[in-house]
């Protein structure tokens, strides 16, 4: 009896130890998951709630996610209402006080950024607009760098004893990232001013970063799928000044872009959009390498 009790205690200790060894992180998108892994290394155990092939607006608070939220030490979200349809329910159902908004275990990437396209007027007649600005921030690597700083501060706040570890990793990441950004920006220089048609506002940061000239959007309004007549008008509008590229994301429905592509004689480029959106986009570096490569190859 005594032995089995001892064994039980041992098992419990063994069960608790790994939990203390790594921070359990629930990241809402693959990009924040990848960034947390870059910054946290082996001190974080990251679970990503969505894949690059999902539309992050339309995710459900499914039981597996509630279960992950229950034991998470940290939630890494985009914020700016990107996850408004499911993350609040997830956090509410989790019974986990550490990850409630405002608690130390809750992080929003948008809190470290100045968002583009903050609407001056809020009206849903304008489509799926986000009051705090465009939340699809990950396709500008400068945003990734800024979020990395804030996220490092968050990780250190959660584990003050490991602050030096996180600072060292952040430094290493920042150096590699700065170098990579320089590489991307040098290579992508010819893309400046190239006219593109975008699918949804989630490509706005990419256009802003590379100086792509966005001439039209396949969605008439954010979140509103195009009708045949709208696409017809678009062809007429673009006839005089055809765009060089049509951009769409791995998770998008390719049909409208392909249709437009044939009529305006511009290639439709499928971009990974998120880590995991293409075989090459294995991590954040791969995401931008592949995005720049695909744009250069197509134009």
């Amino acid at each position, binding site marked *: 009896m005594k032995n089995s009790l001892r064994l039980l205690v041992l098992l419990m200790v063994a069960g608790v130890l790994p939990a203390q060894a790594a921070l359990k992180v629930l990241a809402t998108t693959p990009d924040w998951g990848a960034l947390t892994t870059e910054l946290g290394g082996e001190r974080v155990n990251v679970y990503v709630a969505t*894949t690059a*092939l*999902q*539309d992050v607006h339309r995710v*459900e*608070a*499914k*039981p*597996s996610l*509630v*279960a*992950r939220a*229950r*034991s998470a030490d940290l939630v890494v979200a985009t914020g700016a*209402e990107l996850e*408004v*349809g*499911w*993350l*609040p*329910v997830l956090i*509410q*159902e*989790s*019974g*986990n*006080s550490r990850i*409630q908004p*405002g608690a130390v275990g809750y992080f929003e990437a948008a*809190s*470290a*950024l*100045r968002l583009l396209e*903050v609407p001056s007027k809020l009206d*849903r007649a304008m*489509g799926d607009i986000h009051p705090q*600005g465009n939340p699809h921030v990950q396709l500008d690597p*400068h945003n990734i*760098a*800024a*979020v*990395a*700083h*804030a996220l490092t*501060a968050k990780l250190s706040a959660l584990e003050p004893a490991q602050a030096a570890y996180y600072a060292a990793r*952040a*430094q290493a990441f*920042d*150096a590699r990232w*700065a*170098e990579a*950004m*320089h*590489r991307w*920006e040098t290579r992508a220089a010819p893309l400046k001013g190239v006219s593109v048609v975008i699918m949804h506002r989630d490509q706005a940061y990419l256009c802003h970063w590379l100086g792509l000239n966005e001439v039209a959007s396949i969605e008439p309004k954010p*979140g*509103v*799928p195009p009708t045949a007549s709208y696409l017809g008008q678009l062809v007429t509008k673009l006839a005089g000044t055809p765009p060089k590229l049509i951009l769409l994301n791995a*998770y998008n*429905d390719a049909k409208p872009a392909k249709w437009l592509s044939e009529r305006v004689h511009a290639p439709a480029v499928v971009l990974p959009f998120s880590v995991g959106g293409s075989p090459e986009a294995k991590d954040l570096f791969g995401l931008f390498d592949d995005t720049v490569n695909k744009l250069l190859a197509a134009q």
Partner: protein
Amino acid sequence: MLSLRPMAALLALALMPAIAGAADEVSALRAELQALKNEYGARVDALEARIQQLEAAPAMPPSAPPPDTPAQKSSGGASAFNPAISLILGGSYTSTSRDPADWNIAGFPPSGGEVGPGERSFSLGESELTFAANIDPYFSGVLTAAITGDNEIEVEEAFVRTTALPDGFTGKVGRFFSGFGYLNEIHAHAWDFVDQPLAYQAMFGGQSRQDGVQLKWLAPTDLFIELGAEAGNSGYPATRDGSNGLDAATLFAHLGGDVGDNTSWRAGLSWIDSKAQDRAGGIADAFGTALFDSFTGNAHTWVVDGVLKWAPSPRRQLKVQGEYLHREESGEIADSLRVLLADDYRSTRSGWYLQSVYQFTPRWRMGARYDSLDSGTPHYTLAPDGLLSASPDRVSLMLDWNPSEFSRLRAQYDWDDARDDGDTDRILRLQYLYGIGAHGAHKY
């Protein structure tokens, strides 16, 4: 190796744009950089580019949020803490082949509540108004009021929920939809069909609300395991008995998880103990003669529920759900003059539904549902011989169009045999549902 030190210092400085503003420091760094450049070639190029960028664009201070985020821009003063408000507008057009006034579920006592196909022709549905906000660091509160087409205001839910209990516990107090089964907690505007399955209509008057307390616990496992208990007073099959005690207790357990990236599931088992005191409404025999008029006793209900969702692409989803409800009642029955007819009354009733909804494009969904009930026959001393059990059933088809997340137009056609008299009621319903205000987040 020593020459790495100035590198590290440089990096540290590059990491702290707050002090990058000091122009003289930047020029000093630039001098050092020049020296290192010969040694480190391309890598230093990158660093210089970074410093130039920090000099040129101090617009992005990463460690501090921008001073004018919209959250802070929102109107201050007394209204700054206003709760999130959302409003659902709904209504329908109904056409039935039989008079809805004589609609009933054969073999089941009347459950009250919102049952049946409703009024013919156009009618206003419930306008559902929800207020929700955190109360303080420990509690959040929700009120959902339904303004009915009959110009009444009904409190659907009004509860306070804990947000700071440790170890996976969440408590609720107030009026709330009981957590048993799958559909019971889901608000009407989020249903996949115009109405609730017959089993819910027959056994809970549509949906069961609890005035009381709920405690839920979520296990710290990757498999979703949720256990819950409720105590309080609820509606049918329970009645308020005027005592200081409770008339309903509920226990439930839910499990859930994923199969691959595209499939998720949840399954549950619930048990509801309800007490009834002089509950009005009996059942009739095959000739329409009432067997009894009121019931006093206990009802034990088991609910088995399951839901599976499969999303092969972001634009398509298949959802299959089903529930089985089983109730045993035992106690006393009395006639309309409250004369005791039997004290050994026992009945077993059950019902189930299976439904499937397929979203085949982002805006269109179609669905089918089958309902089936079994009334069983009551047993008691002096029960008439030859009592027949009833087996009401119904088939429903649904098609809805969702121009956006906030609007839905739906058509539903039912072949309704709830009366179980061989004369099928053909019901067509056209429904609209619109949401304004705060973006609601839906349960699984």
